[in-house]
Structure formats: structure tokens, C-alpha cells
């Protein structure tokens, strides 16, 4: 399938060199949590979500730069997907406010958020299996008059719109190399094709913010490249992209800004190159008590200590103290 893995990226780079305005705008910001961005599209303030005793998300302040690609990373269970659900109305937080373009999204249902121009994809791809690929695409179009019950009965009211939407859908399908599959059921597509379809479907609604939940999960490397190209294209078209991803190479490659979450909190943010040096991030991924790689002297010292300890134990054991302490422990009532 999408045979040429490089199409997306070459298309982007063969045009005028990507401006990456967001990257420039973000270049001088301090690398600290909750830093204010020059032109935030989304602002999250004191949002918490608890499930019983577990605090899944507790974000103090987070701003997402307009027109940039923001990568959201963190170990499993860090609350990335929960934050996505909160931002898109699929879940409601216990406290906090969050706005898009200055408009509060609190208490909004998912379809209202989507109509504002914030569309998302899902970690487990939701292709609508028993609809054709083209029908999947058409569903993404907004403001369709044929979707109201009464107007649906008068084809004259929606024919022209449907035709325009179909053309738009075919353009997108060609871009995503799915046009040959337009009349197939979405259920027979491969996992990678479903990811492509879901992204293309989201684009049918002309979104302002695209939120991608693990767009590359379970996708072969060649297709990953093509997906990456598509995500970069979104930025070229002026969309704001937020995506969750585990593959650090991908994150480093495309994001302008990276937000790291762990245990529900934002623990670091900054440009991608800053993240791998950040102690909090390394702690979150590898555990707080990790050690730097051992040098030769250290290794010798550790070995010597271990040998000394063993020698002590052996010296003590014949004296019978150890068994005795054990038995005396045992005898205690």
C-alpha cells in the first residue's frame, strides 16, 4: 500500500522550504513547565481528573502554540489520552478551565468541540467498518444540510453540497493514496490504511486543531514516514497539531515543542532537543534511582565492596551467629 513512503515529506520539502514559524516563535522561550507561549491556541488551567483515588490528570498550566506541532509524550499511564479526552469533550474534568481561541470548552460535548474546529483521532483506530472509505470521508464534512431529517427527504437540498464534498473527499483520498479503495468497506483496510483514513476523515472538517492520539502506533516504518509527511503538511496548511507518540525519533523529527507528562502532571516542556537532557524526564522514563553508566574505577570499587561484604558474611557464619539470630527470632511468641 501507500507505496512511496517519501511522497508526503518530499511534497512538503520540494515546495518552498517549510517556514516553521512556530519553531522560531518558540525558540527563545525558557524551558520550564507552564511557560506562556506567544500565540496560544489552547490554554489549559488547573485541570484535574480523578478516577476514584487515582489522579489521572492534574495539569496546572499548559499553553499550546498555534500553527505548531506539539508532541505529547510520557510513559504509559501518564494521562496523555485522558488529557486528550478532556480537551475534546469526551470526558469532563473534576476541576479547571480550558479554552480554545479564548472560548471556554468547559461542559461542552464532543460534537460541539468538534464543530469549533478541534478534531481528534483515536488510539485504537475507529474506522467505520461497514461504511465505504468514501462514506467515511463524507461523514467528516461539516454543516451538511442533508444531515437534517426533513431536508434529507428532499435530495435537491443536498445534492450540490454532496457533490462538492465528494470532490473534496477524493482530493484528500488521492493525497493519502486511498483513492483506489474508495468503494471498499473501511473494515477490510489494513491497520496503517485505517490510520490514514482516520486522519483524512478528520481533515474533511477543515479543522483548526488536529489532535492525533498515537498516529504511528502499529504502523510499519515506511508508512510512518508517509504519515509523518502528512502531519508536517498539516502544519504547512496552518493547522495546530497536538499528537501523542511513543517513538522518540518521530517526536524529535517533527515536533516544534514537546510536552512531557508523567503520573498525570506535566513534568517538562521545551523544544525536542531539550527533552533528552532533562533530568525529570529521564527519571520519569527510567525511574528516579537510576545510575549513570559505571566507569571502570566505579566498577572496581563496587566489586571490592561486594567482595568485602561476602567475606564478612562468611567470616560470621561459622561463628553461628546468623542461624542463632534466626532461631531466636523464630522462638519469640
Amino acid at each position: 500500500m501507500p507505496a512511496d513512503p517519501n511522497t508526503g515529506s518530499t511534497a512538503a520539502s520540494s515546495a518552498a522550504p517549510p517556514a516553521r514559524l512556530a519553531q522560531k516563535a518558540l525558540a527563545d522561550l525558557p524551558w520550564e513547565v507552564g511557560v506562556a507561549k506567544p500565540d496560544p491556541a489552547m490554554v489549559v488551567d488547573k485541570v484535574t481528573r480523578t478516577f476514584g483515588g487515582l489522579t489521572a490528570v492534574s495539569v496546572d498550566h499548559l499553553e499550546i502554540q498555534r500553527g505548531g506541532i506539539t508532541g505529547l509524550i510520557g510513559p504509559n499511564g501518564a494521562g496523555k489520552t485522558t488529557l486528550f479526552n478532556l480537551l475534546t469533550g469526551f470526558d469532563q474534568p473534576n476541576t479547571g478551565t480550558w479554552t480554545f481561541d479564548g472560548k471556554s470548552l468547559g461542559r461542552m460535548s464532543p460534537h460541539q468541540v468538534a464543530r469549533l474546529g478541534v478534531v481528534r483521532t483515536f488510539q485504537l483506530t475507529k474506522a467505520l467498518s461497514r461504511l465505504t472509505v468514501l462514506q467515511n470521508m463524507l461523514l467528516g464534512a461539516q454543516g451538511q444540510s442533508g444531515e437534517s431529517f426533513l431536508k434529507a427527504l428532499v435530495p435537491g437540498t443536498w445534492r450540490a453540497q454532496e457533490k462538492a464534498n465528494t470532490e473534496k473527499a477524493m482530493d484528500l483520498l488521492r493525497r493519502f493514496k486511498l483513492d483506489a479503495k474508495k468503494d471498499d468497506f473501511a473494515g477490510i483496510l489494513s491497520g496503517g490504511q485505517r490510520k490514514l483514513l482516520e486522519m483524512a476523515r478528520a481533515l474533511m472538517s477543515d479543522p483548526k486543531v488536529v489532535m492525533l492520539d498515537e498516529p504511528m502506533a502499529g504502523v510499519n516504518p515506511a508508512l510512518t514516514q508517509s504519515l509523518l509527511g502528512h502531519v508536517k503538511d498539516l502544519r504547512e496548511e496552518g493547522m495546530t497539531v497536538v499528537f501523542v507518540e511513543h517513538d522518540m525519533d518521530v517526536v524529535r523529527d517533527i515536533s516544534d515543542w514537546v510536552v512531557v507528562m508523567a503520573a498525570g502532571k506535566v513534568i517538562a516542556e521545551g523544544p525536542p532537543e531539550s527533552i533528552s537532557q532533562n533530568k525529570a524526564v529521564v527519571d520519569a522514563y527510567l525511574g528516579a534511582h537510576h545510575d549513570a553508566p559505571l566507569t571502570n574505577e566505579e566498577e572496581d570499587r563496587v566489586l571490592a565492596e561486594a567482595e568485602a561484604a561476602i567475606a564478612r558474611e562468611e567470616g560470621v557464619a561459622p561463628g553461628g551467629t546468623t542461624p542463632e539470630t534466626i532461631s531466636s527470632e523464630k522462638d519469640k511468641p
Partner: protein
Amino acid sequence: MSDLIDALLIGVKSGLGFQAIFFALLAIGINVHFGYTGLLNFGQIAFAMLGGFGIAISVSQWGLPFWVGVLVGIAAAVVLALLLGLPTLRLRADYLAIVTIATAEGLRLLFRSVSATPVTNGTRGLSAFNQSFIALAPWDTQTRYRILGTSWSGGELWVAVVGWVLVALSCLLVWALMRSPWGRVLKAIREDEDAVRALGKNVYNYKMQALVLGAVFGALGGMVYAVGTGSAIPDQYQNANTFLAYAALILGGAARVLGPVVGSIILLFILQFADTFLRALISNGVIPDALLSSTDVAQIRFVLVGIGLMLLLVFRPQGIFGDRREVMLDAR
């Protein structure tokens, strides 16, 4: 041999009579709910009962004209659909199933209860409300007519003709809706609600519209049944009818416009044919009395339908009209 032909003819008549229309309309409603939108409505008969009693109570008890009764029946079904949908459609699909099955049983018990007797006449039900409708027939309703070897009274024929016109109009409506973008949203909801929400559609509204539309088809079915039998008795509206309508829908093919109609015709034909033919064979002594007595036939025919459905699901899971590719996607 003449027994076989007789049984076939009686079966054909049953497959074209008002009972087949009743099941066809129920199944068309269930098709909108289950086939297209993925709503599990296990109490379609409740809407039919409200339709039937809407006419019966309006005409017999309140003295209103027949057509006002039709409107009352439809309005009652719409109200019930809204009441059932409001609390459950925000929840998972199972909740609607629980609520509808309980309502169907509860409403029937309410209608046959002693306290409801002043309105519904309790277990004896209401009658004598269909004269003004039968009187509209353009032919003499007292004489009997022979059509292709089957014998119909004028009244039966009139109910059947009007009923099939109703079925045809319903199919036309479903066809027009399901090829429109509105229908596309319904089918998408059947596949995955959350994906549809993420694309900016108000899923709750669409599910409610679908529930009400299917309920109106159910109410029309109940009206045809009440007018066809000339009486409205609560115990006619057993919830087993809902499941027979589901059987008809699956037999014909879900999410197909003509699936429920053809399924109902075939279901009624098989039930009646099996009944008549088995009885004939028993009275002829072809089937020995020790093996099967004529009192068992009423049950045996349902066993035959069950076996038939099982064979269908093994060899043609998509039903008669369904698309095999579509059904096979579920297995993945």
C-alpha cells in the same frame, strides 16, 4: 397432492394477509433501530400496542373519528419513544434493551389490569372501532372473493391492500432516508458512536430521531393488526411478537430496505404452511398419531422455523438480501 396445494395456498394467503403486514411494519421499525442505527429495541410491540389501542380507545371509548384515532396512536408511540430514549440513549446500548423489554411487558400488564378496565376494557379488550374504515372499501365487504385460488372476504382484502400500500410507503421513506447524508450518520453511529461524535455530529439527537421513526412504524403495524382482527386485546400484544419480527428481519436481511418485508412474508408463509400441511398429513394418517398429534403442530411449526433460521445463519448469515462481505466484517 391436493393437500399440499391447499396448504401452499393457505400459506400464501397468510403471507399476504394482515398479520404479515403487521410483522413487516414491526420489522421495518426494528430495521431502522437495529439494522441501521444499532439501537437494541426489544420492545417494539409496545409501540404497536399503543398504535392499536390509540385507535380502539379513541373510537370506541371517546367516540372520536377513526383518523383522529390514527393520529392519537402515532402521537402515543412518539411520546413513549421520547420517554424511553431520554434517559437511555446517552448510555450504552444495553440500557435501551433493558428498558424497552420491561416497558413492553409492563404496558401490556397495565392495559389488561383491573384498574385500567374503564379505558381499555381489561383482558376482554375493545372492539367495534373499524367499521368506518372498512366502509371506505371500494368493493362489497360482505362477499368473498377468490384470488389465485385463495379466498378473501371483502374486508380482509381491503385491510390487506391498504396495509401493503402502507408497507410500500414505509419502505420508500426508509429508502429515501438511508441513501441521504442523514442515513449515513445513522449507519456510522451503528459502527462507532465516538468516532461520529468526534466528527461533530450530535449522536444523541440522531439516535432519538431514529428511535421515534422506528416507533411510528411499529405503531402503524399495531394499527393494521387491530383493524385486521377488529379488536384490540392487550394479550394480543405479547412481546414474543417483537422477537418474531426480529426473526423476520434477520431472515430477510438487516439494513436492507426490503429485508424486513420479504422476511415477514416468508416467515408467515412457513408458519401457516407448516401448520396446515402437518395437520393434513396427520389426519390422512401419513404421520402416525403416536409420533405427532395435531395438538403438537402449533409448537412443532415454531421448531421448524427455528431450524430454518439456524440453517440460514450457518449458510447465509446475511439473510436473503444482505451483503455477505458486510456481515463477514463483524467476524474480524
